[in-house]
Structure formats: C-alpha cells, structure tokens
C-alpha cells in the first residue's frame, strides 16, 4: 500500500519545522508497510499538539481527554481485539496526566502500541516543562528551572517488564517507521518513545542537538532480550541517547489470558435472547 493514502487531506495545525511532521510521515509509512486496511486501525490520542495526529491520519480515530489516551485505547482493544489499536500522544499526556494508566496498562499487557511524541514540553499550552524535561529547564511556569528529575520512560517500562520498549528520533523518519512496524507487530503493550524536537518552545533539544547524541543500539550490539542490560542503557546518565529496540520479550497478552476474549470479539456478541434472559433470572427464584 501507499503511505500517502494514510495521510488525511486536512490542514495541519503544527508549527513549521516541528518534529511532528516526521512522525506523521513515519506512521503513514508504517501503516502502509503493515498493509493495514484503514478501517481496521484505531488511532487513539489525548489532547496536545501530538494528539492532533488523530485528525491527520486517515484511520478510525478516538481523540479523547488529555492524559487518558492509554485507558481509552485499552477499552477499545478489549472491546474489539481484532483491530489494531495505537495509543499516541504527547509526553505530557502519556507520562504526566496519564502516568497511572501508563503504569497499569503495561502490567495489564493489553496488545496496544503506545507511541509518545517526546518533546520534553507541554507544546499546546505554551511550553511548560513536561515530565521528560531536564532538571533546571526554564519556562514561564518554571522560571528558575524545573526542580524535578526527568522521567525516563524507557527505564520505567523496563522496570515494569513491558514486552517491547523502543526509542527513535523524529528526525529519522525511516528508522521511526521501522520501529513503529515492529512495535505494532509485537504482541502486548509496546512502547515507542520518539525524541521529537519542538522548535518553538524547546530551544535546547533541537534537531541538531539530538543528531549529535543519538546512536543505534543495534550498531552497538545491544541484546534486547537482556533486561539488565536494557535497564543499564536506559539508566545511563551520559550524553548519548539510544535509539532502537531496548527490550523485548514474548508472553501472553491480556486478551490471551481472558477467557471471554478467547471466545471471540466482545463487541460482536449479539444482544441477549429471551431465553438467555430467563436463565439469567433463575437465580432469583
């Protein structure tokens, strides 16, 4: 299939030069590579600049509340586990407001793909520090710099034994698309954290800044099946930033474990019949 077909023909409300454009291209490419029919994909987003992508890719879309992306995606997947469900949003949405759903859906291991546009800021609300912002990062809301330590999504995901943890750089559309394909293909709750420059608010973590620092885990011979090694990489405090698959393991998903979902798609079950209703009420006699 052709990647272009997945690009919705609408005006994009992103700023010129934003990393979001590359991510959109990558997603279209990934969907084409996966040969997924448009109507068999649900793109679930929250609120933020990143979250607008639900309107920019022509698949089914659920553009819900800020921070609740992953919760909504889990509900959708449980109801229709025959569809491909992608939970995509900003770092503020997924790791800040939505931190609890991030934690617990990794535990639940519903087969969804979480894609984070990690620009280290709250873009849409004018540049406040997001959870991934570096300590000391200055904004209008943090005039003497963010006091909190940055959140390392990959380290956390590995600590939660997430089945697939990867990171890419928005400047590398091909690489990002390739990782999206693998993340979607992997069964279980996959995470792809995308390093996304926001030229308007984040004048520190620019395209150039990332280009100088990113390296490929594959090139370094990293073994993604080694959890300790994965944690060590994720926790590393040096100046280099990894891309590629950090950690990967196989295992049953929520759907695999759920006896009712094993019988078929939940939303396809017919409404109860009269005789079922009678049986239901037997216990009250």
């Amino acid at each position: 299939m052709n990647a272009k077909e997945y690009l919705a023909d609408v005006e994009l409300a992103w700023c010129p030069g934003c990393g979001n454009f590359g991510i959109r291209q990558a997603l279209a490419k990934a969907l084409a590579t996966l040969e997924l029919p448009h109507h068999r994909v649900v793109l679930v987003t929250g609120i933020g600049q990143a979250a607008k992508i639900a309107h920019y890719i022509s698949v089914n879309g659920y553009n819900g509340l800020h921070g609740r992306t992953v919760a909504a995606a889990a509900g959708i997947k449980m109801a229709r586990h025959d569809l491909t469900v992608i939970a995509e949003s900003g770092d503020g949405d997924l790791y800040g407001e939505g931190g609890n759903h991030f934690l617990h859906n990794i535990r639940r291991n519903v087969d969804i793909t979480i894609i984070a546009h990690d620009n280290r800021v709250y873009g849409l609300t004018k540049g406040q520090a997001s959870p991934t912002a570096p300590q000391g990062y200055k904004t209008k809301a943090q005039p003497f710099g963010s006091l909190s330590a940055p959140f390392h999504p990959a380290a956390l995901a590995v600590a939660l034994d997430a089945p697939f943890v990867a990171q890419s750089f928005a400047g590398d559309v091909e690489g990002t698309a390739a990782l999206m394909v693998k993340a979607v293909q992997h069964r279980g709750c996959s995470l792809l954290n995308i390093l996304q420059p926001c030229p308007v608010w984040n004048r520190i973590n620019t395209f150039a800044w990332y280009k100088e620092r990113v390296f490929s885990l594959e090139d370094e011979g990293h073994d993604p099946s080694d959890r300790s090694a994965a944690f060590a990489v994720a926790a590393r405090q040096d100046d280099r930033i990894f891309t590629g698959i950090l950690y990967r393991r196989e295992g049953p998903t929520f759907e695999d474990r759920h006896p009712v979902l094993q019988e078929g798609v939940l939303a396809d079950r017919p409404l109860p019949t009269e005789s079922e209703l009678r049986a239901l009420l037997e216990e009250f006699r």
Partner: protein
Amino acid sequence: MDIVIRIVGAAGQGVQTVGEVLTRAAFHSGLELHAEQSYHSRIRGGENAFALRLAPGPAWGAREGTEVLAALNQEMLDQYLPSLTDGGWLVCDEDLTVSEARVVRVPASRLAKEELGLPIAANMVLLGAAACVAGIEEESLARAVRDAFGDKAELNLEALALGKQHAGDPRLGPHSPAYTHGERMLITGGAAVGAGAIAAGCRYLASYPMTPGTAVLTYLAERATRWGLVVEQAEDEIAAINMALGAAYAGARAMVTTSGGGFALMVEGLSLAGMIETPVVIHIGQRPGPATGLPTRTGQDNLLFALHAGHGEFPRYIVAPRDAQEAFYLTAKAFDLAEKHQVPALILTDQYLVDSFSTCAPLEVTRVAPRSYLLTPEELEAMVSYDRFAITDSGVSPRAVPGVSEKLVLVDSDEHDTYGRITEDLHFRKALNEKRLRKAKGLMQDVAPPYVHPSGGLEGRTVLLGWGSTYAAIREAVDMLNAEGESFAMIHFSELWPLRTHELEQVFDQAARMIAVEGNATGQLASLVAQQTGLKVHGFIGRHDGRPLTAADIAQEVAR
C-alpha cells in the same frame, strides 16, 4: 404479622451469612420480606446488624422495633435491647448478661464446641433458636442452609437442630404463606442493577472497588464468563470511565459502578461522553459524604451533583430506582436510552437499596428486550460517506462503530464538525452544541410519569415528595398517616432527569401542603423541583445520619 428479626453482632461473626440464610428460608416459606443491612467500615469487630422484616402484605422497608433479637455479642445486645417491642423475644448465648425477662438463652458456643466440634457454628445454633422463636418453617430453613453450604450443610443442619431444641416452641407464628414458589423473586438492589445490565446487553464493566458500588462489580465479575462480559478492575476511577468509553466507542455496551467519591473522579469522563455522544451507564451507589464520609452507610446526597456534574452543557438521563425490582428495569432502561439517545445515563442507588433483599413479582424478560440502535455493516456499506455527527432534528446522529465496515469513525473531545474532525469554526460549534442539547427533548418523551398515590383526589391533602429508595418508607408512612383520615398522599420520582414537570404542577396545584422527604440535609429534589418549575415545597423532612428513613420517622415528623 409484621415482625422484624434482627441479628446483631460484630463483623466476622457471620451476621450476614446467618441473615441471608434466614432470609432465604422466609422466601422459601412464601413470606413477603424486606431485609436490611447495616455495618461498620471494618472487616472484623464493630457493629453489624441484619434486619429481616416479614409481613403478610408488602414488607415495605426498614423499620425500627424488633420482635426477635438474635444477639451474637454483649455489646450489640446492650445496644439493641431497647429496640425490643412488647411481646418481642431476645435470643442469645447463655454467656451473655441480660436482665430481660423474655429471653431464650442458648448455650450456643458450648454446644458448637462440645457437640459439633466446630466453634464457629455457634451462630448457626443461635440461628436455629431464633428461627424457631420467630416461627420460621423448619424445612425452608434446612433448604436455605443446604443451598448456602452445599457439601458442608450437614454440620450446620445439626447446629440448627440443637438451637431449635433449646428454644423449645415457637413464640411467634405460624405465618401463612403469601405466595407459592415461582410467584415471587428474591433479590437485592445490587444484584438487580447487575442483572439489569446483563439483560440490557452490557458487555463491559471497568471499575475501581468502592462501597456500595462494588456489589455490582462482584455480581458481574462472578458472571462474566457465563454471560460473556469483560469485567476489569481499573487502576482508578478515571481509568474506569475512560476504558468504558473506549469500549463503548468500539461497540460494547459499557458500564461503570462506583460511589459518590469515585464518581467525582469520573466527572471529566462524563463530560467527554456528552461530547463524543457515546453511551455509557454509570451506577452511583450513594453513601453519606462529603469526602469519604460514612463509607458503609446510606444517603441520598448526590442528586444535584449527578445532575450538574461535568463542564459544559449536555443532556443526560438519570434514574433512581425505588426498589430492587425497579432497579432491574431502570438499569435496563438506562442502557436502552443511553444507546438510543447516545448520552450518558446515571443510576443513583444507595447502600440501603444495594444491600437490601426484598421479594417482588417475577422480573419480566419481555419488558427489557434489548434493541440495537447501531448502523449495520450493510447500512454503512450502502452509504456514500459517513459523518458520525450528522446534524438531525432529534439531535441523534446515526451511529457506527469502527472496524465493521470500511467507513471510518472519528470522535473528538474538542468541538468538531459533523465528521468528527476538530474545528474552530464557530458556526459548527453552535450547530453541534445545539444538536447535542436537542436530544433532551427526545429523552423527555421516553421518561415515565412519577408515581402518585392515591391516583386521584389530592385536593387538600398533604403530599409527600420523594425520590429513589425512600419510596417504601414514604408509601408506608402515607398509609400510617391515613389510618386517621385520608389527608395524606405522595408523589415519587424514579426518573429524575429530564424531570417531568406536568404531574408536579398538577400535584402542587391540588395539594394543601407539599413536603419533601429525602435522605439528605438540604432537600435536593426540592431544589430541583423549584429550579424546573418555580414551585417550592412547604416543608422538608431529611435524614442524613447514614441510616435509611423509615415510615415512623416520616409520620412522626409530619405529625409535629
């Protein structure tokens, strides 16, 4: 015969088990009953009370006064002894200290230990005695024990027999049965909500435990594989409502169950449901607030909160069933109207209703028969294009779910155009907001009239206005008050929003005096009535200490 058998003890002593067995025995005997539970927010110790009321006609609801008091410990004996009516009997272990004359002392602990070798069976020995004193049929009791304990029934049956032996002859009864098997059902409010949900085709429940909402969670969880539901404990209530909305968007009828505090966390999600016009049913088992309040007690203090919860303006449907039977039907109706009008529906029950058992006419499956309002894949394929939020006169747009046809389905929490795409075009905004709000009209047409009793001739009467689970107490109070002249009446709402005003206006017009009766401190229905009609009640009877209103409470207050 209108008797209350009250079993009191500490959490962990089996008050609930014993109470349930006794309740089922009475049901098997063909007695009309209502059984109410009250307990502390702890797992062991504290106060537990189970009050089974038996009556020849309807057993209505909770009442004060005890005809048979079965006390499992000294503390609760002392506390409840004053409730014993003239002619009432106390049943307790011989170890307890009591000066009451009308007492049946049973060496329950000793017998359980020595005769049965099972100390925890003491409460069963006591049950045997109490049931005997209360005149409950032996066979019915045995059947209830067998149902409850299965393999382990034998020892319990022996325990019952020992208790009966010590009690001697029945002091009350015999009670003539009011019905034969099959003519009545026995159900709690919590089970009724759960069964109503399954009957309506509910496929998905995501919830976080919270008393008394949990009753519906466990009811459904235990039946999930049998009836094909996914019942998932969420990490928090925000997850619950958003998971449910996700599932509903994808085509599974979805529900959440909680209490006021958990609902408080769902309010943003409720507003989202309004915006994306996705049906979801929210069960709120009320308990007294603010905040954690009295977590295991009852109250009716969430009506205005439920009505106005959520930022922005959007229609919703709110019911507050008057009893378990109605809880079944109105839960099913909530699902139906949520689907039909694509709105969130809220069911307000309370701890009292959720935990109480009552007998009722058999639930009729033909009254719920669920219907689908979704576009079929065939209909969708036949459409040239699909706009999820097409503007219609009714405000309801034909609804598709994703994945079943090639038509894409897009919903958005931002204001959007008819396709579902985010827009800042203010004309779209106005049109879509008006479209959503128009649904209130259609909803109103589906709301049934309030219950008015007696049905005619209210002129000059004092009319009691109520809602939800206070129904039985008010109904009984009206009868009590009318025993001395026909000057009282009632109007009762089980469907609260949209609020029908027509009947209200008529009643206000005819009544000499209107008194609101509610399980709260401020008169929330009275406020709502004033808001919608401009009519103000003349008096208010409220109870807000965590216990249900009783007919006696009301009659006394009215008389003052």
